[in-house]
């Protein structure tokens, strides 16, 4: 399966992933806007309001009943942070027409519904419905506050926030509770109009589909939607490396009622965001802490029994590496020391050729597996697009193969610890 990109105009991209191996078709839409403290909360609220109703299906119940009738089709709208972009994303998925019991054309219905959800939301007096906006403000307030419920992801968020400081990437993807006060049905609708005009839009269609039909559908739809001058403006950048402005390691301690401590270390990596750096850093990250053969897993968990979970994650859109560990509260010093030794060993080249080989096999398997999962395929593609990485899965695997020991040591020596965040007991 090869991804085919149809550029309808400067701001509208249709990504076709044509294959008959799946039992459902997935349709996704991403409206990409700059991550910005001024708009982050509004942009997080918009998909929640879109989810509430369309001009035709005015309530969530109407939508849900429609989805039930479409053989349990799924629909969701949410927000995500991808590099320096905040995405308003909508997903819909329905089983292949061939599995319906009465020969319904679910693909056509799904496309139509998706387009309605974006362009024909339920309005009252020409703006978003006030009841929906107010209801979703409360839901979003709860979602923002619930970030403490999962201690692992909370620690990760807090470390990101401390590391990026004033940079927009520090923002929580659901925004700030304080911003909610100012939001009204009217100013939220204005923001959405701005997004519809300015945002780059990516539609993904993955499944058993015909190219001509899809193209025709979008051309017909967009004929009726006026294009403004702003729409031919190319984005300045989709993501870039940030100046972190941290000279000495920033130590952050936070206390909560927990029985296990959560340690997160952030390392700034002095590399550009090129494809080449991505391949090198991915190999580095795999050997350090992404697989069960990794140095962190083997030495911190298996040999020293200091943690049940420990891993490293490379944030490809920002060139930052995170190391996380769930540890016993009285073993903080020991675990920290052992983690630092692993990172240092990478710098000194203290890893074997077999480690490199294992990492390549691991990555090959991992990336090949993505071919069987529609949602992950879509996520990988949009992520790569924002990074500016234009490569198929097979090409990515081939590039991992070419990374050498010298490449890995080179990037290992560009890592610098910037934040030490520890969530521990009161």
């Amino acid at each position, binding site marked *: 399966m090869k991804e085919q990109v149809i550029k309808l105009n400067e701001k509208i991209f249709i990504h076709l992933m044509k294959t*008959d*191996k*799946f*039992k*459902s078709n997935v349709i996704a839409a991403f409206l990409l806007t700059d991550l910005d403290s001024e708009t982050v909360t509004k942009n997080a609220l918009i998909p929640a309001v879109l989810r509430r109703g369309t001009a035709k299906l005015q309530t*969530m*119940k109407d939508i*849900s*009943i429609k*989805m*039930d009738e*479409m*053989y*349990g*089709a*799924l629909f969701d709208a949410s927000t995500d942070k991808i590099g320096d972009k905040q995405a308003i994303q909508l997903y819909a*998925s*329905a*089983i292949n027409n061939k*599995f319906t*019991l009465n020969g319904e054309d679910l693909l056509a219905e799904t496309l139509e519904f998706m387009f309605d959800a974006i362009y024909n939301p339920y309005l009252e007096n020409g703006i978003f419905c006030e*009841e929906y906006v107010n*209801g979703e403000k*409360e*839901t979003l307030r*709860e*979602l923002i*506050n*619930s*970030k*403490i*419920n999962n201690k692992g992801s909370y620690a990760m968020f807090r470390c990101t926030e401390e590391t990026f400081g004033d940079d927009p990437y520090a923002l929580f993807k659901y925004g700030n509770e304080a911003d909610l006060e100012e939001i009204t049905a009217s100013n939220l609708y204005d923001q959405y109009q701005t997004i519809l005009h300015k945002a780059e839009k990516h539609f993904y269609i993955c499944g058993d589909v015909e190219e001509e039909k899809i193209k025709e559908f979008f051309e017909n739809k967009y004929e009726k939607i006026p294009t403004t001058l702003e729409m031919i403006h190319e984005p300045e950048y989709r993501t870039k490396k940030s100046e972190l402005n941290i000279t000495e390691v920033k130590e952050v301690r936070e206390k*909560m*009622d*927990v*029985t*296990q401590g959560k340690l997160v270390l952030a390392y700034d990596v002095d590399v550009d965001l090129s494809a080449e750096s991505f391949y090198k850093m991915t190999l580095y990250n795999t050997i350090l802490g992404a*697989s*069960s*053969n990794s140095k962190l897993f*083997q030495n911190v*968990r*298996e040999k020293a*029994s200091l*943690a*049940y*979970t420990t891993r490293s994650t490379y944030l490809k859109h920002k060139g930052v590496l995170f190391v996380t560990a*769930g*540890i*016993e509260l009285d073993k903080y010093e020991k675990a920290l020391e052992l983690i630092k030794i692993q990172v240092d060993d990478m710098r000194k080249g203290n890893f074997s050729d077999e480690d490199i080989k*294992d990492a390549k*096999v*691991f990555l*090959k*398997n991992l990336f*090949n*597996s993505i*071919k*069987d*999962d529609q949602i992950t395929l879509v996520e990988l593609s949009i992520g790569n697009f924002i990074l500016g990485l234009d490569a198929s899965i097979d090409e990515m695997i081939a590039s991992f193969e070419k990374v050498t020991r010298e490449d890995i040591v080179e990037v290992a020596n560009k890592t610098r610890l910037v934040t030490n965040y520890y969530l521990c007991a009161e």
Partner: protein
Amino acid sequence: MIYECLNEKIYTEKLENGLQVVIIPKKGGIKKYAAYATHFGSINYKFKTDNENEAITVPDGVAHFLEHKLFEQEDGVNALDKLTKMGANPNAYTSFNHTSYLFECTEDFEDVLKALIHFVQNPYLTEENVEKEKGIIGQEIQMYDDDPHWQLFFGLLNSLYGGHAITKDIAGTIESIAEITPETLYACYNTFYDPSNMILCVCGDVDVNETMEIIKAETKAQKVFSEIDRFYGDEDENIKTKKTEKKMDVSIPMFMIGFKDLSNAAKLKAGMPEEINETIKYDVSMQILLELITGESTKLFEDLYNEGLITKGLAGEFSSEEDYAFSAISGETKNVDEVVGRINSRINEMKTNGLDKEEFERTKKMLYGRFVRGFEDVSTIANMFVNDFFRGVNASKYTDVYKTIDLEYVENVLRNHFDFEKQALSVIMP
């Protein structure tokens, strides 16, 4: 035997050594998956074989501990590392009633399958490596201590059940695992890891005959027991307590209500009609009912959402095994009493008025579609077959049930299951 389900063929065979094999050669996919599982989980703390005069009792968490330790091999190479090096993604898990060793891979499937069978069949347990594992598992137990959803779930189990082993935490406690020795683990291994107590399920684009040959050649018959007697603790049909509450660092109260049902075995014993005992039909009925009570297409959900009482969906689940059965409905809300009251009114109303024909048909169609969707991922498919095998269910039968189940049957299940005398509530408060 060969079954068909959604254009896929399902091959099943019981080998001479007693092992149940299921192969689903799903065409066109890249991922291949295998799970080798034993009918031994956290609730098996007391058991007896024909070779022993008396039942033996083992410390809580022993099945899970053994799961961790089986990866350790005599040649010093950890099986997890070995399979990972082969390009596979190996893992294992322990549930209440089974332990499963599994891997997903894209290449060299046959070699990895052999390696899986090999390590599960060759335990290597020493004082030293058992001691070392206590640290890692201790960390895992603490991680769950901080997980509000896990605590919520166990709060419900501890309200519904008094003496049954299902109330024991799957990983045990720091104190119980301290008592585990290589001898305990070998005793469990020798009892439960006999092919006659296991299933091997493969899903992915594989050659059926070759795969079957490998499994036949690699799995060895050990001592064959005629029967393992399992004791789960004393339990009657009544619940232990109406409500359990716990305080944790969370942003909003979480609740889970559950109804205790008779286990599949107890239903038989109580002389309930054969038909109501068809596990798949009963399960599908419960899926439909839970959807009709709390699903997003219901008026109840719409009202609760619009009134700001809930901010996301309510989850409904039904578990039925040989020795226990219960339903659970969970959610997050500022006002637990109000939401629980409204859910109960909805159940009462359904019991009084019966089900709406149109809603019923729509829900059936929806669940059928969800099932088709689930039949995509090799791990989801294989895990479903493994799970269902241990409760005597052939998962290839679901699609027929979704198409044919009738309203009257489901109404019978509604009146049988949702007995308010058997309802309990678990709450996590900020």
